[in-house]
Structure formats: C-alpha cells, structure tokens
C-alpha cells in the first residue's frame, strides 16, 4: 500500500484534506511541472514540487557533441530566453580555450542579451497579470514580444532559438537600418508599459490579490539561495551585471533596482522597473556600439577542435537572477562534464514549497509566476 505518511505530515486519512495536482496541464503553471498541493478547504497546507516532465538530458547530450555542435543545443535549455544559455556556453568555452572575443562581438552579445531580457519580461508580465485574471494584458505583452521576435529574426535569423552567440563571437553583424527599427519597437514597448502600469499595477484588484502574497523574508535569501529580482525586491543589491561586470556592462549607465519588501506585488514592480531599465540599456548600446570591426574570433578548425583539460564556472545575470555554467574539459574533442545552475531550481522547489503554505488556492498560480521559474532550467 502506498504510504501517504511518508510523503506528508498532514493527517491525510482524517478526511479533512484534499489532494490537488496543480499542473502539469494547468495554465497557471510556468511550464511542464506540477505542484502537488494538500488543501484544507481553500488553503494550501502543504506543497510538493514535481519535475521530470521535461527532462531531455541536455547535460548528457552535450557530452556527446563537439564544442561547436553544442551551441545549437544549449539554447533549448530555457525556451523563453535561449540567449543567456548561448552566451554562458560560449563564454565558458572561450575561457577554457583561451579565446579572445572581438570588442564588437561583446557589444552585439550584450545587446542580444538585453533584448532577450526584455522579451522574456514581456512574456512574464503578461503571465503575472493573466494569472490574476487580467488576460487582456497578456495579449498586449505577447504582441509586443512578437515585435521583439521580429527584431531577433532580423538580427539572428530565427525568432525563438536564435543560435546567434557562438563560441568565438556572434554569427552576423546588425543588418542595415536595424537601430531605427529597434528604437521604434522600444518606443512602442515603453508606451505599452505605461499603459500596463495604469491598468494592472494601479489596479485595485491586482493590488489586493498580490500584495502580501508570498513574502520572502530577507533572512531566507542566503540560506535558500534566492537571487535576482526576488532577492532585490527585499533590499539585496545583488546583480551580476554590477557585482562582476561582464561583456560591456561596465560601460553602460544603470543602477541596481531594489525594493524593501519581497511580496508578489513588489516583485512585479521591480521587474517592471527593470523592463524600463532594459529599454534604456538597449538605447545606450545602439548608440555607443562600434559599427566596424570583426565580430568573430579566429577559431581552430571546429571539426576537430580540442580544448585543453580544465574547468571553469561562468555566471551572468539572467532574467531570473544569477545563472551559471560549470564546464569541465579533458583535452578531447568532447566536453567531459557540464553542469548548469539556474535560479529556478531553488525558486520553484524549496522557496515555492515554503511560501505557498497558507496561500489561497486561487493565488497559487500568481505566486508561482511572481517567483519567475522555468522548469526546463531545473531539469537540464
């Protein structure tokens, strides 16, 4: 007989509790994962996060492919923001192989990353509003995300999986007239953000439902490994872009955005301001970026590219916080091991399981989205 006791501290046989699977087929879940909720009436008593619906074995796949063959693989690790994976992989390989990336490539990479951050936030903002019943906003943001995808299509040749940042640099420079089109899309998004501020962030219902929902205690941040906007919302001034600047972030003007209380509403506000920040960074980069010069380093023959034995950990600030790649090479044509550390791992499992206790079932989706998690990142 299946021993329920082993999995739950609640008296499940007492008849006072209901078990509910929130996901994997649920619109309020952030992807193919599920929350196994134990409910007492409408309130959550206990939560278990289940993953495994999306396991594609990326880390193992990468051990069976050459260094160049891996860069089209890594983008699939996080569907809404492939670029961060591309950059992390490329940066790690370059560090192991001792390759110097041309300056222009760094600018192009940085632009690509910030555009990705904005597109990812747009999708997220729609989800955050949608999960509190405002699906109109979702339609707006997804539209404008599509305009971003048009820009990606022009810049990289693909809409979702760009495969643009390859070890050594990027695959193409900006097409003619890209800046003007990008700036016009930025203006549209900026206008949209002010509209969303009016209809969603200033919406009394939104505030009622999201304020004081899933408060992250500042004391939780370090023990639970909380990073990114989730940590910044409760006052931690932590951002890899500032703390350990990579690419050209040290040449750009921006401040780390923080707030003093990390509940679902404040986290939304912090991300909302970061979207404005993205637009500002993109504008700065389009203005300052060099338009001439090489955008790809000279690589050895990629068909039999061997990298000396070594290991490295590289990190960057992705939409959800610090994102890290640990690569081990053994001198052969293949990676010995790769481990990907994404913030979703703690946010969706340990943090979620703790915050969701006592929350009304109707707010579980909103809480989950406010933590901004991606299941594919958990099960690489």
């Amino acid at each position, binding site marked *: 007989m299946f021993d329920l006791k082993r999995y739950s501290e609640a008296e499940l046989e007492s008849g006072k509790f209901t078990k509910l699977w929130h996901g994997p087929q649920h619109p309020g879940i952030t992807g193919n994962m599920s929350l196994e909720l134990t409910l007492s009436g409408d309130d959550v008593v206990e939560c278990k996060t289940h993953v495994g619906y999306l396991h594609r074995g990326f880390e193992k796949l990468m051990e069976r*492919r*050459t260094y*160049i*063959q*891996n*860069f*089209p*693989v890594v983008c699939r690790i996080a569907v809404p923001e492939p670029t961060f994976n591309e950059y992390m992989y490329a940066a790690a390989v370059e560090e192991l192989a001792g390759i110097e990336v041309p300056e222009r490539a760094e600018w192009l990479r940085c632009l690509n990353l910030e555009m990705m951050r904005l597109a990812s936030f747009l999708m997220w903002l729609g989800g955050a509003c949608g999960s509190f019943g405002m699906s*109109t906003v979702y*339609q707006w943001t997804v*539209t404008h995300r599509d305009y971003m995808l*048009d820009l990606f*299509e*022009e810049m990289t*040749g*693909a809409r979702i*999986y760009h*495969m643009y940042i390859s070890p050594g*640099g990027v*695959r*193409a*420079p900006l*097409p003619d007239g890209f800046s003007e089109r990008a700036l016009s899309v930025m203006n549209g998004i900026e206008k949209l953000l002010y*509209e969303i501020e*009016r*209809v*969603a962030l*200033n*919406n*009394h*219902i939104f*505030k009622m439902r999201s304020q004081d929902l899933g408060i992250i205690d500042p004391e939780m941040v370090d023990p639970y490994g909380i990073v990114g906007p989730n940590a910044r919302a409760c006052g931690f001034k932590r951002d890899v872009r500032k703390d350990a600047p990579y690419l050209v972030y040290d040449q750009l003007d921006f401040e780390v955005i923080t707030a003093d209380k990390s509940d679902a509403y404040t986290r939304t506000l912090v991300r909302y301001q970061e979207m404005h920040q993205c637009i500002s960074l993109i504008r700065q980069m389009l203005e300052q970026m060099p338009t001439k010069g*090489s*955008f*790809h380093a000279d*690589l*050895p*023959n*990629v*068909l*039999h590219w061997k990298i000396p034995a070594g290991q490295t950990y590289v990190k960057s600030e992705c939409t959800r916080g610090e994102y890290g790649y640990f690569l081990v090479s053994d001198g052969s044509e293949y990676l010995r091991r790769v481990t990907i550390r994404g913030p979703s791992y703690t946010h969706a499992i340990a943090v979620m399981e703790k915050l969701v206790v006592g929350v009304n079932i109707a707010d579980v989706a909103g809480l989950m989205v406010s933590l901004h998690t991606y299941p594919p990142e958990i099960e690489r």
Partner: protein
Amino acid sequence: MKLKDLTSPFYVWQRAFEKPYTQSKPTLNREGAHAYRGFHINDIEKCVGCGTCEEICMNNAIDMVEIAAKDSKKGDSGLVPRFDYGRCCWCALCVDICTTGSLRMSNEYTWAADDPDSFRFTPGVDETSWQDSEHGYRRHPEYDLLKLVRPEMEMLSPDEGLKSFDEVVAGYTHEQAVVEADRCIECEICVATCPANMDIPGYIRAVREENFEEGLRLLYDTNPFSATCGRICTHRCEDDCTISTFGKPLAIRWLKRYIVDQVPAERFAEILNDEITENGHHVSIVGAGPGGMSAAYYLRKKGYGVTVYEAGASGGGMLRYGVPSYRLPDDQLDKDIDYIVSLGVEVKYNTKIGHDIEFQQLMDKSDAIFIATGMDQPSSMRIKGEDHPRVLSGLTVLNDVASHKDPGVGKNVAVIGGGNVAMDAARVCRRLGADVTVLYRRRIVDMPADKDEIKEALEENCNFVLQAIPVLIEDAESSDQVTIQWGEAEMIAEDGKRPRPVLQEDRMHTDTYDSIISAIGQSGDFSFLPQEISDQLKQHWGKFEVDQRQRTAVGKIFIGGDIANDVADAISAIADGKNAAIGIDAFVSS
C-alpha cells in the same frame, strides 16, 4: 485605497478604438526576414559532395546520397546532402561550414504536405517552391569556420637558390605543420583524386596528433616513395582540395614530407615492421624507377622473390636523372630506395635488357614480368637543323647535372618546351650561370609543367617567350653558337576546341644562343622486346594498353609507369606499381 486605483483599469476600453494587432494571413502578407534561417537550398552545380555538412550536423539530419542527375566529375564525390526535417533544428552550421558555398537557406516559413516522407528531401534535386529564393540565411562573408590561410613555406630566395643546387623548399616547422594539418576537414575528395589513393586525411590526422609513426605506416600502405612524393609529387590532390574554393588548398605534399622528415631512415624497419614470408614465386621487373620499385616493394611484402634490372648505375629512374637536386636531394631518394632494397629486393644495376641479358631469359625464369622502363628518349622537334651539335636534349642536360658532369650549355641558352623537363632544364641552366630564354608555342596557362615550377622559374629570372614556334636551326657565325629562327603564333580556337597556335609567317625572328635545349616531350624505347612479344602488346598513342591491374595481352607481362599511363608522373607510376603487384599476385596464384 485611492480612487485612481479603481478608475484607471477602465483605460483598457480605449483599446476598443484602435486597430487590432493581428493580421488575417500573417504568412502570406509578411515575408521572412532577409537572413531568416528557413528551408535549405543547394546549388548542385557548385556542390562537390564533400560531406562536411553531414559531419557537422549535430542532429544527424543530413545524409549524403547518390543522385542520378549528377555526373561524377573530378573532385566531386557525386553525393549531395539529403535533409531530414524530422531532425533538423535549422542551426545552419551546415551552411556555415559548406566548403563551396553551395548550401544556403531560403526565408520561407511554412511547408505543409500530406506525405510525411516528403520532409526528407534533397535540396536542389527535389523540386521546392523556394529553390530560387533570393533571400534567406547565408554565411556572412566575414564569418568563417573554415581555415583558409596556409602557413607560408620558408624557401630560399631566388637569388640564393641560384647560387647552388641546395633544396629550395625548407619544409614546415613543427608549429606550421600542426596548424596546416588542423585545416583539413577530412572530406576525402583528395583520396579519389590521388592516383595511388593515399589515405590523405589519415596521415594529416597523424600530423595533427603528432603521431608520426602511424603517419609513416599510412604512407607506406599506398606509397613506398613518400620522401620523394613529399617533395616533387604533382599533388593533384591539392587541385581538388575542397578548401581551395575559398582559400588555399591544404599543403598535402608538404605534410607528407613533414612526416617522412620526422622519422629517421634507420627506424623505418622497426616502425613499418614489414614481415616477409617467402612464397616461392619469382618476379622480374625491368626498370628501377618509381613504378618498378613500387611494384618490387608490394610484391616483396607478399613474399615474392623480386629481381629488378636497371640500365643505370643507381635506382630512381627519372626521379634521379630527371629531377634536379634542388627539388629532390639524392639522399631523400636514397632513403626511399634503400628501404625497399633492405626488404630483400635484388637490384641488378648497369644491366640492360637485350644487351646484358635477353628478355627471353626473364620470360623463362620468372612467374611474371613487370615492365616500367619509362620514357627516356627525347622527342624530335621535327624541324630542320635540330641535329646541330649545339642542340642538346633537356634530359641529357639534367642527366649530366645529376651525374655531376658539366653539360656545357654556355652562357646564353634557349629552352624549347613548357613541361617540367623544360622548366627543370631552364632552372638548372640558371644555376650553371647561364641566361635562359624559354620558348613555348602556347600560353603560360597551357603549360603542362607544375604551377610551382613555372612560378619559381619566373622568379629565377628565366625569360619566357610565349607563343613562339621554332622553324629552323642553323649554324651561327661562331662555331660555339647556334641560330634559331622562330615565328610568333596566334592562338586560334576552332569550333570550341582547345585553341591551337598558328604560325604568323610575317612575324619571324632570328636569335643566336650558345646552345639550344630541346625539351618538348619524351618517348619510350622498347627495342629490347622480342618482335613476337612486341607484336602482341597493343599500343595506343605510344602507350601500352593495360587493364586496371596493369596486365597486358601477354599473360605474364605487366606494364606500368610513363609507358602505360597518360599522366606520366611519379605518383601515377607508383600507383601502377602497386596495382601491378596486386595483379601479379592474382595472376600467379590463379
């Protein structure tokens, strides 16, 4: 609670008066971005079937397949990529690495079909609506995954080179060799082009991995004249190297040389470990040139007793007497020959068939005979006065120099011809201190000589007079000199045929030289063959007719080298030798 928080959401209604975001037919009304990675396009005319796309594809979505529409041509595997869109992820690495630039992508978004198998298709062969699309992803010109630049080979400057008969080419350094070997994409197109079908990607890999012993073994599998070929091979493999579409072809010849140079001759036996089990049969070989010695090597490895008859005083044939030592030093040729002899091959020098031993004796005592006597008789210019004592043959000059004799060419020499012998004769004369004029009846592009040789001859200040047809040779005022009359020629093409030089009789010139060297071709001397055998052997344009294994109409006679193949270069002779060994083995054991 503020009043604004209650009223502002109604702002949404403003949208009711705006145009919708959506389009009714987005894929029809909106074209893909200029560089969108859509469906594949392959230019079959350009594609050589190198298979690099198949190699780099991380999904194994590409298979190289044979198609009926494509003629197999030189430097082309006859294969084309077939894509499986059930596997493809449109990363376009195949486009980035395409060696010929034949592969690109359209900016097409959608493809619907009711037959799932149709998504496994061969672009350029199967009809697609996007085949002629102008847009779509193609490799950016400044982004290249292929390595196109060849390390510069260190060479003696033309001035220094002229001072001696020292080898001109220095050979690669270790770093250069590894960098050069790294450029190989292992497409194996060169293997099919090489007459000896050497495992070129294999030994290049050995250089890359710095495993020279393995490299030497791979070389000797197909070519026992590796030190020689590493220097003077006509390297047709490099002509077909797929990297040469956009860059410099791999320096295959110099890499071969690098392997042999790394292994000292005394270690050959230990590394190659050629174990010989005698099989009791005996084969006679006529001529100790590359063809004969190559056959001797492979026959000896199969356990045959081998006797080689050589008219000259040492082995190597045309490699020794026809190739000057600044291109192939004697010690390098000796390295190859000594190893073959060390396996127990008996070589009888200074033994001319028909003079010192009758051909019939060979027929009687051998199970098979391989003839590779080469072409050592200079062809005639068929003009009046060519028997003038100041007219020398190119081969004689080279032969004299190789035997350390002074050919006595004088200070002002004309060389007639455009082949390798002409170039060698000209460069040898430059080293002997003469001013050299090369007269050739066609253009530089028509010259049969190696491009390197032509380039180096020009660098060494040989004066090229092109489209010049000699007409008459006569006595000059001084008995030490000779006068040549020649006319300018126009290249005239008739009915799309190769242009032919036509003498312009109104533009004649007369020049006087200390000597004239005729190097317009060679032919073979087969007087040693008894009449009844010679009658049975079929000839065509001065070459013996043989099958793939060098077998002739006369049972036990096999023929190879310059007297059987049309190309008449060292590597073809070596390949003939190996083929003959296989043919003889099959013949003797049947």
